[in-house]
Structure formats: C-alpha cells, structure tokens
C-alpha cells in the first residue's frame, strides 16, 4: 500500500515553499497543503536551543512543533502525527533514550534523531542500536542536520502504514 504521503516523499528534495506550493497547485485536488509538508517534533529542555532548532527547521520549510520535555511530547503524540522526532539526549525527568524506548512500542516507525552536548559513546551506540536515524553532537552543522532529516523522512517513507 502506498499512501499519499509516501508518494510525496520521493520528491522531498525540492526545498522551497514556492515549489512546494506549485506542486500542491499542480496536484491540488489530491494533496492537501498540511499533509504535504513533513512535520517534525523537537524535544529539548533548553529553551534557547529549542527555539534555534525550530527556526532552522522553518527555514528548511519543514513544519515543526517543539516540546520542553518528553512527557509533553508523549501527551501530544498520536501515531503518524509527526514524520520525524529530533530529541535531546539529556533532559530532566525522562531522557532521550527513555523516550526512544517508549516510542518503540507507541510509534515504532517514527524516525528519531538524537542531539547531544556530550559525546557519550555508550548512549550513542545504545541509541543507534535501538534504531535511531542519527546521533548528532552539538554544536550541529545545519547541512548535516538537513541531510539526516531527509534521510529520516525517506526511511519513514518506507515504513509500513497500518491504517
């Protein structure tokens, strides 16, 4: 089964909103604006970094929603609501790794990108073993992040949809 979303992901490298909109317009009947733009969830307890990440994702023309902590994200999360999750590793309360564990049962196909201020090799291999798309160390290069988001979205594209 191939959903509308998955069809779109094949063309995701086209970056600008204008082009996107043109695409919408071309396929206007089939594709709604909301559904076409991938939506990324950001979880980080550091406000300045969270805000910076949101701004960067916006300039990439992604839609995104930011959460201060894993609990808040989980409360807002429903299956397929987000196309990708970028989470900080170290957070008060529920850590990035714990969040990943929970999502393994709640939304196993949601691609997860870890960002961390520490080069904690143990946490890194644990995250990657558990299926994380990437484990990026702060400070993060914008191009690198973009490549990994695209990779995550492509991977998500191939995930089975069970609706």
């Amino acid at each position, binding site marked *: 089964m191939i959903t509308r979303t998955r069809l779109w992901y094949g063309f995701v490298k086209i970056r600008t909103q204008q082009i996107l909109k043109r695409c919408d317009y071309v396929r206007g009947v089939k594709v709604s604006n909301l559904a076409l733009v991938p939506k990324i969830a950001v979880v980080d307890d550091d406000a*300045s970094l969270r805000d*910076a990440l949101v*701004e*960067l994702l916006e300039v990439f023309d992604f839609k995104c929603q930011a959460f201060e902590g894993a609990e808040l994200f989980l409360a807002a999360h429903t299956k397929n609501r987000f196309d990708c999750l970028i989470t900080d590793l170290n957070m008060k309360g529920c850590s990035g790794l714990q969040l990943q564990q929970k999502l393994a049962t709640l939304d196993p196909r949601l691609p997860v990108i870890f960002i961390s*201020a*520490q080069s904690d090799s143990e946490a890194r291999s644990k995250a990657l073993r558990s299926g994380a798309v990437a484990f990026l160390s702060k*400070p993060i*290069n*914008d191009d690198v992040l973009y490549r990994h988001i695209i990779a995550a979205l492509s991977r998500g594209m191939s995930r089975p949809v069970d609706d």
Partner: protein
Amino acid sequence: MELADYATDSVIRYDLDGTIRYCNPASETQFGWKAAKLLGRHFHDLMPDRAEASSLWKNLLRIGRWDGLLQRRLQSEVEIGAYVRLTVRHDSRGRPLDVVEYAALSMNSPVPSLPVPPLIAERGGAACWQFNIKRARPLLDADAAATGYDANEQEWHPDRLDTLLAAVQIVDVNDEAIRLFGLPADRDKIVDRRVASLWPEQSRAALGDLLTAIAAKTDTEPETREIPVVDRLQHVVLTGWRAADPRCPDIVFVRVNAILNAPNAVIELEASQNRYRNLISFLPVPVWQIDARAAGRIFDRLKASGITDLAAYSEEHPELVDLTCDIVQVFDVNDEAMQLFGGRQRSDFIGPARYLFDGTPGAARRVMLAHFSGVRNHVEELKVKTFDGRLIDVLLLMTFPVPGERRDTTIVMMMDNSARLEAEAKLRIVEGDFSHAARLSTLGEMTTSIAHEIKQPLSAILMNAQTSLRYLRKADPNLEKADQLTSRIVESAQRANDIIGRIQDMAGKRDPIYTLLDFNDVVHQCLVFLRHESEEKLVVIKARLQPDLPPIHGDRIQLQQVIVNLIVNSIQAMNTAPQTQREIYLETSVDEDDHVACSIRDTGTGIPADHMDQIFDGFFTTKEDGLGIGLAICQSIVRAHGGEITAANHPEGGAVFRFWIPTGSTAEL
C-alpha cells in the same frame, strides 16, 4: 684634734666664715702649704676661683655636707685635683658650729675645670635640687608684678602651675633627692628635664610659691615653705635660694628636709625601687615608662566639669588628642625598647610620647579614651614607625597606675608581632592554595557537565547564525528574521559568558572578599552551577530555602565552594544507589542561636562509622582520584566565617552535613 695629727689624709677645720682654724701635717704634705701659712687663711684661698669657692661655701652651710672632686690651689700656684669631703658640725642645740674638711689627692689630677662649678654635694644630709629658672622668668616676673606677690594668698590655677613648672629645668639633684623622691637612679635621666614631670603632686603649689618668691627677691637669702605631709614624708620643709655666683643668676637651689613616716620605709623604698629598676631594665620585653599625670590632670578637670563621654568630647575637640600626645612624656626606656625601635641613644626616646602612636591612625585617641575610662590595662595591635624608618606590627600593652600606686608611672610594653603576622600571612596563603586546589579538584570532577553546560548556548549560537545566514542568502532576504535571530545570538553569547564567568570564579585563585550576602542567593547560584551535574547523574535536588534569611557576612565563592563540594560529594555517594532513590534535600534556616544554617542530606549509603572521626581530616578520602582535602577545606572555610560544620548519618539513611554561619550582625570579622 690630736688624733687628726696622725691621719694620712688632710684634715682642715674652718670656722663658719671659712677661715682655717686648724690643719694637720698631712695638709702640709698634700697641698704644699706650710701650716703656719695656712692658719688664718680662707677656704677660697685654696681654690683657683674665688667666686666659685664662695658659692660652694654658702651652699655647704645651707645643705650641711658637700663632697666631690675639687681643684685645689697649692702654695706654688700649681692646681691639683683632690677628693674633698666637707661637713658642717653642729652644737648640742643644733646650731652650726664649724666645718671639717677631709681631703685626699685625686689620682686623676688635674681635674678638668668645669664651666659651672659643682654646686651641689653628691651625697649629703638633705635632698637637694638645682634648677634653672631662665625659661620660667617671664612667667615668674609677670606673677610678681601682677599680684604684688603674697605667698600665703596665692591660689594656683592648675594650668598656670603646669606651665610654670614645665618651664623650670632641672640642672642637678643629689643622691638624697633621688632616694627621697624616688627619681630614676641614672642622673642623666633627670638632668635637663622639666621639674613638672618629677616633682610630687602634693607639693607642686608650694614649689611654685617658693620659686616665685625667690625670683622676686634681689638677694640670695633663703626662702622657706612648709608642707605638713607629702606621701610618706612629714614636716616637709622646702628651702630655696638663688645661686650667689653672678655668672648664673637663674640657678636656684631647693633643699628638702623631711621626716619619713616609718623608719624602715626608707630602706624598703630603696630596695623596692632597686628591684623595680632591675626588673624593668632586664625585662626581655621592650618597656617604656611614661608619665601621664599631665593627661590625668586634664581628665580630672574634664570630669569635674561634667564631661563623662570623652569619645564624643574628643571628636568635638580633636586638638585634645594632640595635646595629650605632647604632654604625656616618656621618661625611661629599656634596652629592648631601644632595639625594637632601632634607636641609638636613650635621649631620643625621652620626651613626648607621640612617636609611639604615630604609625597607627586613631591609636593615640584609643589610648587616651582607655586612660580616661580608668581601666587598668589597654591592649591593642598597632603599627609603629621605628627610628630607622621601618613600620612594624606590635602588640601594645599599657598599664595605667591606679589609686594607691605611684601615679607618675604608666608602663608601656610592646611585643613584636611581625613574625607572628608573617607566619599567619604565610598560613593564609597555604590555606588559600589548598582551598584553590580543592575547588579545582571539584571542577575536575565536573568537567563533563561543565562542557555540557557551555555547549548549550554555543550550539544555540551556531544554529541561530546558520539560520540567519540562510534567511539573508535568500533571493528575497528576510531581514526581520535575521534581526530576531541575531538578537538571540547575543543572548546566548551572554549566557555562555556568564557560565564561563562562574567557572572562572571557582577556578580562579583569589583572596576572599567579605561582603554581606543573602545566603539563599549563594545556594541558588550553586544549584544553577550543579544543574547539569545532578541531571546527568539522575539526582534530584530538593531545595527548601527559608525565605527572608538575615544577611551573613562572608565570601561568596568560598561559601559556594562549601555547598558545591558537599553536593558533589552527595551526588557521588549515590552513584551506586538505585536511580529512583537519588535525592538530595537541601535546607536553609535560622537556628536557635540566630545563625544561618544549611543542611545537605542525601539518600546514599551514609558515612561508615569508622570514618566519622576522620571525615574532616586533610587527605582523608575514599575516592580513588580524590585529593581528600574537600571536606577539610569546607571545615576551614566555615570556621573562617565563624561557624561550624558537622557530619552525621540520617536515621532514614544517607549522610547529612550541616553547617552554620553567624549572621552579619553577630559575626566578628
């Protein structure tokens, strides 16, 4: 007189006019005068100077005895030195009868001739003073002119008496005067001083009268004044006269006759004075002897006029301190004192006491207030300027005389503190080094969380900058966004700077700066500092800070060091504890003694009982990479703040460290 014929010393008897009535054969051989030539001659014929001889003779008759070295003129006109002892003999009714002279040739003849003849006998029956009233002349003359002088009516104003006696200079005193008046044994310490500083309190007015009367007279006839009691003396009679020698018109002699109350008193007095003098001069401590009576008189007058708060009075009249410094006189110092001040001559130390207090502002005033308050002792640490230009730290110990003691002697001692203060300064440096090492050690244990904390704002800066560039590089640059993002960059950079500042504070080497602090602020800064460390170790810090703590007086960084160190220790103590139980309870409060208290309790394994006693010892550690100075430093910091720190195990498990610091008002820092 037959016996005298066989004596080997010269023996001569004069009548009261000075005419020779007898001489023995030794006189002939010693002075080369034929006996027949000597008889009928006058005392002054044996002397090279007639005027000198006649004034000596007059003094002899008034004092009763004279002995000392004299120039003798031989028949051959040659002059020769002789040791001469002259004694006035009295009849059974006490009237002078004649004068007997014993003389022996001096070994060190000829005696150098003196500009002013030795007018006072060195030993004699009566205490004798020789004054120079030259500088007091204007005062004396004014008195005589103004009042037409009447000794009995004269009422002395204390100021005027002080001024007069301060102008009268002591030329000489005899041994009897030294003994009777308890003067310094060393005559050099008496000569040239003002009589004001040595004359007994109760007979000052009498002396003033006497000198005024003598000054008003044109002849050299004696004047007398009687005083019933002076200290231990009774029936004191002062007899004064001007020198007959016209070369010294301002020289006045005063003879003091008195009866001591108790016959043994003299011996006791002498013995105790000797002991006292020996004690002072051999004491291995710098000692000054000061006559502060002049200040005492001023204080008495101030008290009499109703002034009780000298502190306030001296603020209104700062010149009082100045005056006190000048009128309070050092009259003796021991060798140790001279050494301490690097002085060569004792005379440099004698005089106004001002130089003792010059090195420390306010010291003279504090000493004055202590004296005024009537305390026995005054102790303070001060800096003094030595004569060779050094500034040294000393501990000053002053003992003021209390009623019943000789009022003329205030004892000042100084202990050289330089060595102790130097050692203390070195100790503080070592302590500072240790404290610094402990901070670095704590920081070292926290490197991971420090790196994490700095990376956060740096990441935000980088990300915002990159986003900003993307907006600017668009075909249609979004300047509004770029502006907004750049503002965020500034904020984050500021935050990074603050973090680095905090670390620098902890890592830097610095002297403590004591200020008034809100202890809760200090705690809060520590929690910010430790946030990442505790989060990373999955430790929850539950702080309960009592609001409105009284301010404390302390060094912010040092107190932070204590708190950070205790919390880091607690975090480490819970490494092995289950993650759900890693909690630290931090509380601030005001304890029953009004101290600000802080307790830090963890849920770790607690302190093993056998470690409890050593836990604050330096270099005691159970950590492999620990220096073992953290808790020792915590203790020394808390103690330096006037507080105390304790360690215990909590009944519900875990260790609890508790320390308290006095509040700003109670701390003595």
